[in-house]
């Protein structure tokens, strides 16, 4: 019975749609769980600017507030280990997701970001048998998610041997920054066969190609509603084909239920891998219909889903 247990969410950044959707899912799911008497409390805490120190302080405060479990989307995989260890030492269950932590005492609900990057190239291998030039849009320099996805893409490119990354820019996971960087480098690039992205930059890239008056290549999308909508429009108009992949913000709810299960005394493996959410040509309409206007394609987990997920691991 976990009805008197308290779970806290430690989040380090709230300034984009993905994070907002993630917080939303948590909030909705947590409130329901509290109302149902499954859990005592499910509070969310967020700091401003993706800073390790502030998140570490946040975790330490949660220790003081006596939470039984802390669910973390971490700013840095290693740099929070100090605070995480303190939490573990205080007997608190720590579950990390999306931005995972490497402290051995914590649980990890990881997305294989490298595989996510590689899957883009796998898709391109199929779609563009002749290969071609690629433009890579990266995230924020120095953040591990960026490094992982990019590493996956580069491995894929090396294995395939058909593609060449002719340009690589940092879009800081911000649409306008990405658009700006692409627009700047585009004139100097040869013909581009495809654009590989880290999520959410696809629409901006398409805009930049359009503005430069160049044919829009195959752009891998990042599950955002505006991207999917644009894709749908292109598909209807000229049969445009691509795929879209990202991590579902609702993974916060999975982390919530995993923490609840651990509190409930279940044994759960320390390392869990959650599949990323992929949209393909055939299920585009279906996924688009389920996505909130201006939001991100999402999958939320219920207790039953979570139990099923754990059983399958």
């Amino acid at each position, binding site marked *: 019975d976990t009805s008197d247990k308290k779970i806290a969410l430690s989040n380090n950044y709230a300034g984009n749609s993905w994070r907002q959707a993630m917080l939303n899912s948590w909030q909705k799911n947590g409130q329901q769980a509290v109302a149902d008497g499954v859990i005592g409390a499910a509070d969310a805490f967020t700091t401003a600017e993706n800073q390790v120190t502030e998140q570490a302080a946040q975790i330490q405060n949660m220790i003081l507030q006596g939470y039984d479990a802390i669910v973390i989307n971490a700013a840095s995989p290693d740099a929070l280990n100090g605070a995480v260890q303190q939490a573990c030492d205080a007997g608190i269950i720590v579950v990390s997701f999306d931005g995972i932590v490497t402290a051995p005492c914590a649980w990890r609900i990881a997305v294989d970001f490298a595989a996510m990057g590689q899957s883009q190239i796998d898709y391109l291998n199929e779609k563009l048998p002749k290969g071609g030039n690629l433009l890579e849009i990266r995230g924020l320099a120095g953040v591990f998610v960026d490094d992982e996805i990019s590493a996956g893409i580069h491995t894929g490119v090396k294995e395939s041997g058909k593609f060449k990354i002719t340009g690589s820019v940092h879009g800081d996971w*911000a649409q306008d920054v990405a658009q*700006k960087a692409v*627009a700047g480098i*585009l004139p100097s690039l040869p013909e581009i066969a495809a654009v590989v992205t880290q999520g959410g930059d696809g629409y901006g890239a398409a805009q930049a190609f359009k503005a430069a008056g160049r044919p829009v290549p195959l752009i891998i999308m990042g599950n955002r509603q505006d991207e999917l909508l644009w894709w749908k429009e292109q598909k209807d108009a000229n049969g445009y084909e691509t795929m879209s992949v990202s991590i579902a913000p609702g993974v916060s709810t999975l982390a919530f239920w995993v923490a609840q299960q651990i509190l409930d005394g279940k044994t759960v493996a320390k390392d869990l891998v959650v599949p990323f959410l992929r949209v393909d040509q055939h299920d585009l309409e279906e996924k688009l219909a389920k996505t909130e206007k201006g939001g991100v394609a999402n999958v939320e987990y219920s207790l039953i889903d979570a139990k099923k997920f754990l059983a399958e691991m």
Partner: protein
Amino acid sequence: MHSISSLFHHTLAKPWIWAFIGAFAVWLATIIFTGGQGAGQMLTAALSFATFSVIVGIGQMFVISLGPGNIDLSIPANITLAGVVSMKLMDSHNEMILLGLGAALLSGLAVGIFNYTLIRLLRIPPIIATMSSSFLILSTAIAYGRGLKIKPPAALAEFTTTHIYGVPLLAICIVVLAFILGVMLHRTVFGQSILAIGQNPRAAKFAGISVEYVRFCTYLLCALLASLCGYLLAGFSGGASLNMGTEYLLASIAVVVIGGTSVAGGFSNLPGIWGAALFMFLLVTMLNTFGLSAGLRLMLTGIIIVGVIILSTRSKQPS
């Protein structure tokens, strides 16, 4: 011969010329690298993106011209709020475009008044007042917009992305706006008052200028320009997002000082802002084109900025 060389020296003595020289040099280096490919398109792109830095840069320039300590750090949050408010209000409907603009400007107005209240009534140093208010503004944007990205009305998107012979329509509009603001700076009582206050606020008071009123209007103007930028930027990039203003914190300050405006106040340089905005865009483009790593790119950006500052301060000294 003599007059040509004196003209040359005269031009070199203008502090903003270095930003344009820098922009040109960087552009040249890039197209030499690409073997001439994409030279024109690069300028087109530079113009479209420089436009946004110029809008906020002008506002920041007016504030910085008020003298040491005056700076507006709430620009990014202000951009975001204006973008979020206007996009949500317009909800992609063309007929709401003007209403959306009004709402954006209104949010800017509120921000400006709030900032000045903190500075004047609570005597909080501008740098901290605007930093604190930016947190509150961002929270407002989050609470209001919930991070949802709503598409701009088609007509607005069209307007912000149209080119005429490779020149972005928006850039032309902002050149006109910049010209008007330049005239305002040099040919109106308000503009001259700003410059006077920036040089010597006590003397300005004794010369009959209402110092606090001018300061109020300046912070308001800066906030209004930032909100205009938020509105246009959201239209340009397909909707407002919560982090859309982030990069304009450093950018707005950088284009002002690289453009030749004195951080000590009292000396503004409007054309220089265009030069600096183009320079900053082309610099990033050049480093991207060279295919350097993120670290090296940032290091070179820093070194080049400091270099431009050293060059331009030296050229000011002999006069």
